[in-house]
C-alpha cells in the first residue's frame, strides 16, 4: 500500500469517528418547570423547529434547548408516543387536556407526524358533539348575543339532528 493509500485510510477513520460522535451526541431539553431531559439526536430529528436551530448554529458541543411552553409531564408523554411509534392506543389513553397540549407542542416544534395524529384524534373527538361540548373542550367563550345565536342555529337546523348527548 502506497502513501496515498494510508492517507485514504486516515480520512476514512476520521469520518467514522465523526459519525460515531454524531450518533452519541445528545440534546438537552429544558422544560417550563425546570427539568432537563437528555434525548438522542435522532429524537430531535422529528422536531423540525429544534433541527433548524441546530443546523443554523452547527455547534459540536452538547446543545441545550429551552422549551418554556412545554412541561416535563407533556414532554415525557411525547417521548412515550414517539418510542411507541405513535400507537393509536396510546393516544386514546390521553386526557383531553394532555391531547390538546401535545397538539400545541407538536405545532410549536413542527412535528408533522405527531401533529397529524393529535389533530385527527381531536377531530374525531368533537365529531357528532354539541356546540356546548366544543366550547367547553376548547375553552371558547360564546360571544354571540342570544338573538344572534338563535338566528344562526335556525339557519343550520339540520346540522343539529342526531348529535350525541354530552
Amino acid at each position, binding site marked *: 500500500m502506497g502513501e496515498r493509500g494510508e492517507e485514504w485510510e486516515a480520512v476514512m477513520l476520521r469520518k467514522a469517528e465523526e459519525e460515531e460522535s454524531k450518533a452519541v451526541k445528545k440534546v438537552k431539553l429544558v422544560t417550563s418547570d425546570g427539568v432537563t431531559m437528555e434525548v438522542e439526536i435522532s429524537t430531535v430529528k422529528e422536531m423540525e423547529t429544534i433541527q433548524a436551530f441546530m443546523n443554523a448554529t452547527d455547534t459540536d458541543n452538547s446543545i441545550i434547548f429551552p422549551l418554556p411552553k412545554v412541561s416535563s409531564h407533556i414532554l415525557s408523554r411525547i417521548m412515550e408516543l414517539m418510542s411507541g411509534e405513535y400507537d393509536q392506543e396510546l393516544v386514546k389513553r390521553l386526557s383531553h387536556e394532555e391531547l*390538546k397540549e401535545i*397538539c*400545541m407542542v407538536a*405545532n410549536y416544534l413542527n412535528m408533522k407526524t405527531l*401533529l397529524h395524529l393529535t*389533530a*385527527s384524534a*381531536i*377531530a*374525531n373527538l*368533537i*365529531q*357528532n*358533539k*354539541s*356546540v356546548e361540548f*366544543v*366550547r367547553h373542550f*376548547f*375553552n*371558547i*367563550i*360564546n*360571544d*354571540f348575543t342570544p338573538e344572534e*345565536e338563535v338566528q*344562526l*342555529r335556525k339557519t*343550520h337546523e*339540520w*346540522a*343539529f339532528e342526531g*348529535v350525541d348527548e354530552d
Partner: protein
Amino acid sequence: MSSSSQCSAVLPAELMMEILSRVPVKDLMRFRCTSKWMNHLILDRALVKLHLQRCSKNTNILLTIVDYENNKTMYCAASCSLQSLPQNPSSTIDYNCHRFNHDYIVVGVCNGLVCLQDSHRGVDYQELWVRFWNPSTRLMSEDSPRLRVPSNDNRYPYPFQFGFGYDDRSDTYQVVFLDNKSHKIEVSVHSLGDSCWRNILSCDALVILSFSGAYVCGTINWLAVPKSGSGYQGKNFINKLKIFSYDVKNEKCNYLSMPDVPCEGFPDAPVIAVFKGCLCLSYRQGTRFLVWTMREFGVAKSWTPLLNINYKDLQIHVPYGMPIIPVVLCISENDNVLLGSYGTAEFFLYNKKDNRIDRYELFNDNMFCCFSYDCVQSLVLPYRN
C-alpha cells in the same frame, strides 16, 4: 380575524384550522354557533382550501333526479354516499333528496359546489342565469346576472351550452356559456361573485352534442362533431366525434382525441362524464353498451375499455316503450360500474371481478336518475365571502 380571538381562543387559529380541516361539514356547520371567532374561521378561505385537500375523494356522488309525483315534474338532486347507495338505493336517495322549487338544470359539479341553471322565456327573448349551491353546507347563492338569447331558437340539438369549472390560479369558480352561432361559437364566462358575463373568444362552428360540459383537470369538455360534411348521423359517426375542450385557466379552446373505436353497428347516444377524476365516454353500439375511460388526461393512448356488456343482460324494464339508455352513475375504486336506466327506477351494479350484474329497484317508481357527478363534501361557499 375578529378582535374576539384574543379573549376566547386557547388554541391559535392555524392549529384550530389543522383540527377543523379534519371534521365533516355537517359538524362544522353546527360549530359555527360556538363563537364569532369559530364562525369566521369556518368560513375562512384558508380553511375551505385545507378542508378540500383533506376531504375524502370518490366517496359521494350527486344524482340528479326527475320525480313525476302526481303528474307534476319535480327536479331534485341527492348527494349520496357510495357506501350506502348500492346497498339501500331507495332509502339513500329518499333521505338525501333535495327538491328544488324551480326547474333547475344541473350544469356541473366542482369541488362539491353545484352550478344550477334556470331560465325565463319571454316573447322575443329567453333569459338565462345560474345559481351556485353547496349540498353539504346547504347554502345557495342569489341569481347570477342574466344572459339573453332569442326565444324562437331552433338550433339543433341545443342552441347553447353551459359548463362549470375551477381556476386554481385565481381560486375562482367559473361558468362557461357557449353560444352556437351559424359560423362560430362564442364563448363567455361568468366568475362566481362577479356582476357580469365576459366575452372571451370565438372559435370554429361545431355541432355540440352535450348540453353540460364535463369538468376535469382544469378543462370543461363537450362532445361534438364538425358542422360540415354528412352531419352528425351516419355510419362513421363515432369516428367523426371530437371532444371540444375549454381550458379554464388559459381561456383557450382545444380538441381531445377519442378512443380508437372499431366501426361495427350504429353507435348511439354517446355521453361523456367524469368519474374518479377521469374522462369517461359511454355509448350504445348495436346491442352492446360500452364505457371507455381516459386514464391520463389528454393522452390519446390512455383510453381504456372499462365496460362492454350486452344491454339485454341488464333486463331493463321498458314500461312505456321508451328507448333503453343506461347511464353511468359511478365507477368504484376497483372499477365496478353502477348504472342507472334513464326513464325507469332501476339500478345495475356491474361487478368486474365476478363479471356479474346485480339489479336494484327504487320503491318510488315515479323517480328516475338522469345524471351523476362526483361530488366531494366541501365547505366551498356559493358566494364571495
